[in-house]
């Protein structure tokens, strides 16, 4: 019994290792194509969105940036995201939708909002909040889910630029931050998270805006069950190597 269980543990480790090794090369080659703006199979789907975003933001993708301009753009973008997330968290009580105020027993204080905003935009993603007792659904989605994506994409962009800095010789520029950011988002994080989140939903992770459900247990006690758009957050949380989860118990829930 024990020896067969031990065998199972080894199979777990080996399968995990095999997946990591197997994925490393194709994933790396794909990322390189994304960073170098070469053709990929996703171009027909996300190419038009990329073009539209450049137009909206006023970005000229053929322009390159010096390391200084690149870093300033990155820092300004992160600062802007921190401010926006802070405002979303502080004013979350004005957002429509659940959960009911009665369940939000731990208030979102100014210092907690500042802590959360800074740590999420820096991909530290420290979960100092209680999830189901503190956050409104829309704050979770428009605030935290967005930063799970954007902080991750900004980190990927910096990675692209860093590698260019090493690989290029006699070049005054290391790429364009906006191009790297948008391509990391459109070609890597968003499509992977869409597929991954659908798999999580299939396996039971909820995605709704419903009020918390009041159940009457088999023994006749009332039990309130927390709900919410959980699937939108869980996969990008892991993909972007972030930490803060939807519920207080985070990845251990249930």
């Amino acid at each position: 019994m024990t020896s067969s269980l031990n065998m199972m543990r080894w199979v777990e480790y080996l399968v995990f290792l095999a997946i990591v090794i197997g994925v490393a090369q194709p994933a790396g080659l794909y990322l390189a194509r994304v960073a170098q703006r070469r053709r990929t199979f996703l171009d027909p789907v996300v190419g038009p969105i990329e073009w539209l975003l450049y137009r909206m933001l006023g970005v000229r993708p053929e322009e390159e940036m010096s390391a200084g301009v690149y870093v300033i753009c990155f820092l300004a973008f992160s600062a802007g995201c921190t401010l926006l997330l802070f405002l979303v968290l502080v004013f979350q009580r004005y957002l429509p939708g659940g959960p009911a105020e009665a369940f939000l027993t731990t208030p979102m204080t100014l210092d907690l909002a500042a802590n959360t905003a800074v740590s999420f935009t820096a991909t530290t993603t420290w979960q100092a909040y209680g999830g189901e007792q503190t956050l409104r659904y829309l704050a979770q989605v428009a605030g935290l889910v967005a930063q799970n994506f954007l902080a991750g994409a900004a980190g990927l962009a910096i990675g692209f630029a860093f590698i260019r800095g090493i690989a290029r010789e006699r070049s005054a520029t290391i790429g364009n931050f906006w191009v790297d950011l948008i391509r990391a988002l459109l070609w890597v994080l968003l499509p992977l998270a869409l597929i991954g989140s659908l798999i999580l939903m299939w396996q039971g992770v909820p995605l709704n805006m419903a009020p918390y459900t009041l159940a009457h247990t088999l023994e006749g006690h009332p039990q309130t069950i927390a709900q919410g758009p959980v699937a939108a957050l869980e996969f990008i949380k892991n993909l972007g190597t972030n930490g803060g989860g939807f519920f207080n118990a985070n990845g251990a829930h249930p």
Partner: protein
Amino acid sequence: MSDSGEPGERTTPAVFPPPPQAKLSKQVRPVILSVLVLTLLSGCVFPLLLAVIGRPLFPRQANGSLITRGGVVIGSELIGQEFSRPEYFQSRPSAAGNGYDGTSSGGTNLGPNNPKLKNGAADFSGIQQLAEKYRKNNGLPQYAPIPIDAVTRSASGLDPDISAANAALQIPRVARARGWSEEAVRRLVAIHTKGPQLGFLGNARVTVLELNLALDQSPGGAGPPKSR
């Protein structure tokens, strides 16, 4: 490649002709708009797209895998609930709120070398007290080994499952309380035991609510006792 490091030997992958350089003064608009537009894209468009695709595909899961009986929600497949009567299989102990609180997930956060975890305190049952109670409830001898999930609170306090070994130890008690043969209960437990995921991930487990519901709904449960 052994004598590498000679400058001038390698080809230079410099960008040629040099691309136009972005001016810092032109970056104000992208900074402001990117924060707003990309937040909308990943924080609103993405969840909506996921909902539009995912909710019709997996409606039951999307709404929390709720279990209803006679039109009344009795719980969720994913959320453990309290069972204290002997005729029901019992869930793992819980530290969520005052126990099994679906709006207050959490564990004890007691480290393995914290004496409180083992010995308990005035208002807190340690592993020792939980084990004593478990052995007493299930008519086990004083030092009978018990599975660890029976005497530890899960990290969320809402673990819906118990280990197959935990369920097996509770079979005699449930059978006696219901007046069934142990064999009948064991058969039902076997039906509701799930093996390791994909055959190798984790351990065999039983979802407590699902099993207890099956006990209540099986003909042996509603009718007079001692029938097979």
